């Protein structure tokens, strides 16, 4: 390598290091904004402002899906196995919606830490399983909260 080529190599390396450091700090500064959702544990710890819009994600708790007296409002509990949040939602639930399925709900959290959701999305995980082996996975998913200490990843 000739001296000029070495100088250019150092220059390119410096540009890369500089841009990486700048990006690192920019992302660090916006960290909370890049997070897509809050977990039920964060709601329990009071990391929210009442009457503000948030997204929360968690598993639909077993046996928690009910319909309110008005006949259209669906009420269910979302859990990360450590804390629960009650969600009220008027609308069509996604196809994948069922007990122990991870979902993302967007809406306003009221002063009683319950969410009035305007949108409910299903969140599928990274596991792909053929139909024949589905029972084993479904069982593992149903017992997710029993098998783990503390909060669960989804």
């Amino acid at each position, binding site marked *: 390598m000739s001296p000029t*080529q070495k100088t*250019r*190599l150092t220059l*390119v390396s410096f*540009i*890369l290091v500089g*841009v*990486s450091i700048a*990006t690192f700090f920019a*992302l660090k500064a916006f*960290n909370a904004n*890049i*997070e*897509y*959702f809050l*977990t039920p544990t964060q709601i329990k710890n009071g990391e929210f402002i009442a009457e503000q819009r948030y997204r929360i*994600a968690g598993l639909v708790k077993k046996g928690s899906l009910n319909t309110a007296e008005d006949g259209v409002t669906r009420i269910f509990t979302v859990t990360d196995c450590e804390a629960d949040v009650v969600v009220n939602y008027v609308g069509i639930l*996604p*196809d*994948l919606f069922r007990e122990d399925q991870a979902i*993302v709900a967007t809406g306003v959290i009221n002063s009683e830490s319950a969410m009035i959701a305007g*949108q*409910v*999305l*299903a*969140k*599928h*995980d*990274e*596991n*792909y*399983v*053929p*139909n*024949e*082996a*589905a029972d084993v*996975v*479904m069982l593992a998913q149903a017992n997710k909260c029993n098998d783990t200490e503390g909060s669960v990843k989804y």
Partner: protein
Amino acid sequence: MKFLSTIWQFLNRSFFRLGSPREFYKISNYVTPVFGLLFLVLTLIGSYNALFVAPADYQQGDSYRILFVHVPSAWLSLFIYIVMASAAAIGLIWRMKMAYIVAICSAPIGATFTAIALATGSLWGAPIWGTWWEWDARLTSELILLFIYFGVMALYYAFEERTTAERAMAVLAVVGIVIVPIIHYSVEWWSSLHQGATVFREGGPAMPPSMLKPLLYNALGFTFFYGYILFLRARNMVLDNERKSKWVQELVNKEHNKEAH
């Protein structure tokens, strides 16, 4: 040691041979059709297995099969960026003509794969998640990648003089490489609607071999497609850039005579 130094010398020589546009053109006469053939064979095998052999998913049924296009395209969008940025850096440091050509010819192919990844992801998200688009970390960073590709192309074609255009484009391509790790780790560093990594994750792929095999066939096939299109585009650009040189004019005359007879 002697063996290693022989290999090193061979690599070094072929690197600088490929660096000459004329040598590249000669080599590409043979390499281009091979890449095209490999693309056809691998993608046909992969797609057949993806559609007819791989089992349906327990949760998503048959709609998960869009993954066999979505995932290879998304991988390629990152892989092509890495190739483009490396070529741009080599061009900046060694002032190598061919490196710049590889970089600028890669940009539209990378942009296309990024657009395919975004579009198929959107089509997949609509029935499974219940939404076409969400501003989560993975989706947003992939969209930024598309804009960086556009920026690299726009910068190159904005300058009259070629050397200026090449250098400006190369600097942007090198700087933009920071988006690649951000896209890859976006589902780990932040919470997202997009799923985590299925294939490249701790503890091995979270899918059975019957699904993994067609995915890898398609990924390899798509990579050869990139190589095929890259070589076609690079050949054109070499001829255009070197149109005043003797070897190109001889080539043109030869083709011309062939047509006349």
